[in-house]
Each structure stands twice: as structure tokens, then as C-alpha cells.
């Protein structure tokens, strides 16, 4: 909250700086009767930047440092044997002190040393916050004054501004890389913690998934076998592709080769509506409409079909993926050069022969790429399977029985009440890492194929 106010304060100062710089540059211009290098607004913005950036930098440094200082203060007040012992007890004590200091309160009576530590922490917080505000304000004002004094006709304000602008643009595009790094690092570190408790071979090659529950257990108390989950994931993805590929591909072919402009204008956007519907809606649809429908069919033909099963989830996921496949394939088919199509038709082939023997082979790499992207989507899809797959992590081969998937298990393991440091929670990150690597691999291959294919006809 304080940080937020400080940021607002800095922004206000920056606005003031802009106005002052603007006025100052105009006065300099009039007084010297000189041609300024840049426009007044450039000087104004330069002043604003000088005013804001150092102060914001100070704020960032403080935000990073503050928790460490607090910890130092707390540790200094702790009995030495507790600090020397370290481990979970120490972390727990630090957390308790943090809660006392914030006025949040803790369970049980607070020990005297905890109260003392909380007092120290609170002092660090108060003094530190005041110091931070003072430093930020000082930096902002110093920057303002410094920048104002620099305003002279020959100051290349625009160029300096533009360097900063480009730098900011570059930093923004770095956020994407930071996100990827964040994903990889966070999952890797938590997964490594998990693998220090459960050996990787038990995870990757185990055929039993039974994590049990534990509140604050240490050590592996259950079976964390990935295979049943992976099998369920692949089975559902396979069923989804079985539904989506024929319908999606034929839709794309019909739309690009047969449909008149009116039909195209109506049907294409309507089918693409399917792509914009939230997955939770599909999940609900699977649970309340498709599942009972399948179970009803099963009852009618005397075959045992569960309402929540791999088939239910797979079929609905297939419906979700149809527009994905159809619009990607449509793009790819229309990219095949006109001359190839005309050549085939001119030789007397029917349209379907042209499509089957000329267009599809030419478009095949692109379609394979689209297929792989769709598979990666199906593997990473969560809400449909959470609601409709039945959540039964057992290795079995009947698509009409309940299964569980990697994504469902991630949700189950992290939404329970178990401790974050227990293997029961950490396994979610190992699963997430597996999922990330699988989808990343599929995407890289697919994008490579699609790009390669594009170049072929460009």
C-alpha cells in the first residue's frame, strides 16, 4: 500500500517536472533568442524522466532489500540456539514474528523473544519506510533540479529521450523472456525439491498413483507414478483428435473449396464461436449434457458407459478443438498456389480428386503442424477434464471408464489443504514441468513445420 502511494507521488512529481521543464525550456529559448535543439515537450519529458527514474529505482531496491533487513532484525532478537539450529523451526518462528508485527496475530501464546523480534521488525518497517520515502523524494527533487539546470539550447533532449524510450521498449519485450524464465525456474526448483523426496524413476516410471494425504509429512508416503496420468491424458487427447480432425479438416476443405461466399460468411464465424467459449462452459456442457447422453446410449444398447469418462471429456474437447483445426487448415489450404489447383482441374480431375491428390499432399506439412498444435492444446486443457473425466487415476484401457490426467492432478494436489512443502503439493510442479516440456516440444516442432511450409510457397 505504501509502495503504491509512493508510486503515485512519484508520478505526480513527474507530471510537475514535465510542466516545469516545458516552461523552463520556453524561457531559455526566449531569453537567449536561440534555436533550441529540441521541442519544448522533449525537455519537459526529459525532466520528468530524470525526476522519476532514480526515485523508482530506489523504490525497487528497497522492495527487494526490505524483507532481508526484516529477517536480519528478527534473527538478531532470537535466542542463538534457535538461529544455529535453523531449519523448519526457524522459518516457522520468522513467519510467526512477521504475523505478530503486522498485527495479524498468531496461534498460541507468543514467546517473549518473539515479541521482542516483532518489535524490532516493526521498527525496521517504520524507519525503513520513512527512510525510503525520504530517499525517493530527495532523488526525485535532485533529479528535477539537475535536469532543469541542464536545459540549454544545445542540449540534445530529443535524442536522450529517445534512447530512454527505446530502452523501455526493449525492457518491455524482455517481460516475455522473464515469464519463460520464471516458469522454467519456478517449476524446476520445486520439481527438484520433489525429486529429492521421491526418486525421479519412481515418478516417471511408476504405474501407481496414490499420493495419500498428509498435512506436514516428510518423506514419501504414497505412490507418485506418472504413467496412469499420462495414459489418461493421451487417451483423452486421442479421442479429442478423433473427433476434431475429421470434422475440422472437412470443414476447412468445404469452406475453402466448395462453400459459396454467403455460406462462408455465415458458417465460418459461427464455428469459430466455439473457439471463444470458456473451457469451464465446455466442462459443464460435458457434465450435464454429453455425459448423461452417452450413459443413456450405453443403457439403451446394454453397454456400461460412465457419465464421466475419458470418452465424455474427449468428445467435448474435440468439439472445442474443431475451430482450431479448421481455421488453421483453412489458412494452409488457401495458401497452396492457385496454379497447382488449376493445373489439376485443367487435366480433368474432379474437385475432390484435386483436393485429395494435389491440395492435401501439398498442404500436408502445414496440416501436420496444425495437428500437433491441437494435440498440445488437448494435453494442456484443464477444466473439461476436471469436470468430466471422472478423476480416477488408474491404469486401464476402456475409454468409457473414468480416468485422470496430468492437469486434473495438478489442480487436485494444489487446491487441497496440504502443506506447500509436502511431496503431495510439490508433485504438482513435477507434473507441470512434464506438461510444459511436452507442450513445448510439440509447439516447437509444429511451429518449425508450419514456418518451413510457409517459406516453401512464399
Amino acid at each position, binding site marked *: 500500500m505504501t509502495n503504491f502511494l509512493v508510486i503515485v507521488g512519484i508520478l505526480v512529481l513527474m507530471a510537475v517536472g514535465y510542466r516545469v521543464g516545458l516552461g523552463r525550456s520556453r524561457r531559455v529559448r526566449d531569453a537567449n533568442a536561440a534555436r533550441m535543439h529540441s521541442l519544448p515537450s522533449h525537455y519537459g519529458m526529459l525532466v520528468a524522466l530524470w525526476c522519476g527514474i532514480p526515485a523508482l529505482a530506489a523504490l525497487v531496491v528497497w522492495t527487494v532489500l526490505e524483507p532481508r533487513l526484516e529477517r536480519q532484525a528478527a534473527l538478531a532478537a532470537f535466542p542463538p540456539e534457535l538461529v544455529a539450529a535453523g531449519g523448519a523451526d526457524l522459518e516457522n518462528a520468522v513467519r510467526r514474528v512477521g504475523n505478530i508485527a503486522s498485527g495479524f496475530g498468531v496461534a498460541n501464546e507468543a514467546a517473549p523473544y518473539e515479541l521482542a523480534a516483532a518489535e524490532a521488525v516493526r521498527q525496521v518497517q517504520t524507519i525503513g519506510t520513512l527512510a525510503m520515502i525520504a530517499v525517493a523524494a530527495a532523488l526525485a527533487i535532485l533529479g528535477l533540479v539537475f535536469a532543469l539546470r541542464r536545459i540549454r539550447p544545445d542540449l540534445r533532449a530529443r535524442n536522450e529521450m529517445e534512447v530512454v524510450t527505446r530502452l523501455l521498449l526493449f525492457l518491455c519485450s524482455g517481460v516475455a*523472456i522473464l515469464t519463460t524464465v520464471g516458469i522454467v525456474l519456478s517449476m524446476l526448483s520445486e520439481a527438484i525439491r520433489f525429486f529429492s523426496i521421491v526418486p525421479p524413476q519412481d515418478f516417471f516410471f511408476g504405474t501407481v498413483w496414490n499420493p495419500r494425504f498428509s498435512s506436514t509429512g516428510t518423506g514419501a508416503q504414497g505412490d507418485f507414478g506418472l504413467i496412469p496420468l499420462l495414459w489418461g491424458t493421451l487417451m483423452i487427447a486421442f479421442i479429442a483428435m478423433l473427433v476434431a480432425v475429421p470434422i475440422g479438416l472437412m470443414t476447412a476443405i468445404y469452406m475453402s473449396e466448395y462453400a459459396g461466399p454467403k455460406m462462408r460468411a455465415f458458417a465460418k464465424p459461427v464455428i469459430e464461436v466455439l473457439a471463444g*467459449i470458456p473451457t469451464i462452459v465446455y466442462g459443464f456442457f460435458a457434465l450435464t449434457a454429453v455425459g448423461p447422453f452417452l450413459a443413456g446410449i450405453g443403457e439403451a444398447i446394454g453397454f456400461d458407459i460412465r457419465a464421466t469418462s475419458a470418452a465424455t471429456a474427449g468428445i467435448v474437447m474435440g468439439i472445442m478443438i474443431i475451430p482450431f483445426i479448421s481455421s488453421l487448415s483453412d489458412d494452409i489450404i488457401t495458401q497452396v498456389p492457385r496454379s497447382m489447383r488449376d493445373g489439376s482441374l485443367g487435366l480433368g480431375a474432379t474437385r475432390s480428386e484435386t483436393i485429395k491428390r494435389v491440395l492435401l499432399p501439398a498442404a500436408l506439412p502445414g496440416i501436420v503442424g496444425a495437428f500437433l498444435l491441437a494435440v498440445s492444446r488437448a494435453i494442456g486443457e484443464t477444466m473439461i477434464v476436471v469436470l468430466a473425466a471422472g478423476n480416477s487415476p488408474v491404469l486401464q484401457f476402456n475409454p468409457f471408464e473414468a480416468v485422470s490426467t496430468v492437469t486434473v492432478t495438478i489442480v487436485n494436489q494444489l487446491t487441497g489443504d496440504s502443506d506447500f512443502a509436502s511431496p503431495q503439493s510439490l508433485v*504438482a510442479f513435477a507434473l507441470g514441468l512434464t*506438461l510444459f516440456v511436452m507442450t513445448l516440444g510439440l509447439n516447437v516442432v509444429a511451429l518449425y513445420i508450419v514456418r518451413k511450409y510457409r517459406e516453401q510457397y512464399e
Partner: protein
Amino acid sequence: MTATDAAAGPGRPSASPAAGKVVASLRRRHAKERNFRLFGLAAVILGLGFVAILFASILVRGVPAFWQAVVVADVYFDPAVVKIEDPPVREAGESDAAFEQRRLAWETRVTMVNWNRLIEQALLRLVPDGEGKSRDLLALVSSSERYELRDMVVADPGIVGRTVRMELLASANVDVWLKGNIDRSLPDGQQALPAATRAWADQLRADGAIEMVFSRWLFLNVDSRSAPAAAGLAGAFVGSLYMMLIVVLLSVPIGVASAIYLEEFAPKNRLTDLIEVNINNLAAVPSIVFGLLGAAVFINYMKLPLSAPLVGGLVLTLMTLPTIIIATRSTLRAVPPSIKEAALGVGASPVQAVFHHVLPVAVPGILTATIIGVAQALGETAPLLLIGMSAFVANIPATPLDQSTALPVQVYLWQGNELRNFFESRTSAAIIVLLALMILLNFVAIVLRQRFQRRW
């Protein structure tokens, strides 16, 4: 085509066996062509059919939930029952804490008043044979109504002693019974309501004392466990609103800046390639992975609060960024180079050319990209479950740091409610609200695109 058709036509006599073969093969080939075409048409129809079935199944279930049963009754605020003194007034020199304590004590006393007695008396006037069966009688009305009465008295103590005609919200079970969402032939033991209550509900409905009115509770109330009939979407809506604000505030500047850098300024080198590949891959990373990132970094490492819209907004921002970057880049690419070149030609610097001339032309496209990104973020559920937003929250979040749910998460929570008969249609109604918002957003995007799109 016509020439071949004529040649293949049965009317024309075949001159030779070879020609006969050709005719036969042509017939076969044309049959295949027709079949292929039909197969394509079937696929399109199937696709359209899925859309129709999906929407129909949700509308059929959800639309009735927008109307709820209410019991129209005259509630007499009996002074013999409502015996409360005036609210405490702050005395001079009284400390905050002391006043707060007195106020709290008063509120407790007000809540302890037997409000149910008032409801019971009002209902007795409608069904006189309910005398002495207060449990069965009170089962008619949602348990949230006593708080409604309390709030009325707190807001206007002068109401005590008067009779007010009120629409008392019927309980969820009565709603289910009247709408026929439960099998009426089930034996008593399997019915949620006692036989007497069911009979009264039917009788009151026939008398016109129970009416179906538009369910304002669905929109104005927060989620409720004790009074399912009064459960609403207000809290989830505000939570979603906060998140979307955060998404727009963060992802638009960062996304547009990245797109401008990559499209206009980035040198062709390996770092740029890396960033590009990265963005394309991030766009295809499963959303649940972003949830894991949020759980590990924002919750576990940065210690941001669980279930807070702030964290949800940050996670969704990271998820939306690639969408916005990719869409903005294609918009920037569509701006004709002549505009930029003209600006450069009259002496603008590259930065000026981009910010003063290229960017303004691209604004409609960027807006469209933003709206589509926001619509996508609005419907996202899985990552929010991992950062604790599936907790039950009974308040409208006042700030983005308070506990909250979101619209799609509310759908998830309601579909899992044990009171299936009631919540199946309530969930569908929530889905309709969610879809309506998304359709509205997309509609705005389409209008913007058509209005401002320029062809060069």
C-alpha cells in the same frame, strides 16, 4: 464442367467399349465427388450443430433461473417481537474502540431478534392451517430473508409497528419444486421438503401469492451457502472486474511496447529471434502452467495474499501478453510503410515517426486486440484455481487485495454444489451471464474493427 457432364450423360450412346468404360468410370468418379462434397457439408453442419446444441442446452437450463419464486406477503413488524432500542450514538470523549464495542453489541442484539417469527406470522395469514408447524412453514422462505428484515429495521427503525407488503424470496427447494426440477412422484423420504410445505407451495402458487419475479438476487448478492436461493454473482463479478482492470492496465502498455520494439526497432539478431520464439511459445503454453507460476512465484515466493484478484490479474496478464503482442504486431505490420517513410522524409526521427504517425493509425487494431485478450482472460478458470481463488468468499472484495472469486470460478464452484437440482440451472444462468459479457466484448471489438478499419 458442363462439357464433361454432357459427355458423361446417359442420354448419349456410347460409340465403343472404351468409351463405355470412360462413361462408367466418370460416373463412379462423379459419385465419389458428390460423396466427398456431402461429407464436407456434413462436417460443416455437424460443427454448426454443436454450436446450436451447446447454446441450446445452456439456455434451456439457465433461462428459467433468471426468474425466482417469491412469496408476496404482508409482514407486520410486530413491536412485541422487534424489541430493540435505538442504535448507540457516539458520546463525547468516547474512544473509537469503546464506541465500536457498543455498536457491535447492539448489532448482535438486533440480529438475535426472532425475525423468523415475523415471517412466520406473515405466512400464517396466507396459510392458516400452518399453525404450530413453524419449521415446515419457514421452509417456504429462504433463510436469507430474516437478514433482509433486520436490515430494513436498521435502515429505518420507524418501520416497527407497521405492515409492509414484501416479496419474500422462496427457498431454493420451493423454487425447485415449483419449477418441476425435481421428480414430484418421489416418496416423502426422498423429497427435500416436508409434505406440508410442498402442499402449501402449490396452493400459494395457485392462489397467486407465490409469483415468479426477475431474480435480482442473482446479480446483487454474493455467494451464499446457508441460503442458496439468495446466492448471487456480485462478488465474483467485482473480482473479475478487478482482474480485468489489472490485465488492461499492465498488459496493454507492456504488450504494445513489446510489439513496437519487435516490429519497428529491434535489430535482426539472435536476441530478437529468441524473444520472438519465446512469445510464440508462451502463446501456446497451457494456462494451468501460468497458474503454477503464480502459485510458486507470487504466492509462495513474493508472499502475496491467496485468493486475491491482484494475483489473479498478474497471472492473467502474463497469459494475455503474448496474445496482445502478436495481434498488435500484425496491426503494426498492416500500416503501410509509406506513412512511416513520409514522416522520416520530412525529418522526423524514427521514434517520432512511430509514435506520432504509425501508432495512431494502429490504435483501432490495438483496441481490438486488447478486447479479444481481455475476453479470453475473462473466461479463464484453471490458473485461478491454483492461486486459491476457488475459496468460498461471502463478501464483495473492497480492494484487489481482498479475497475474491471470479465469474468462471463461481461457475466451477456452483456446478459442484450438492443442491444439484437448484444449482444446475443457477450455474447455467451464471454461464449465460459470463457468455453475455464475452459476446458483448467481442461485439464491441467487431464494431470497432468495422468502424475504424481502413483499407490501404
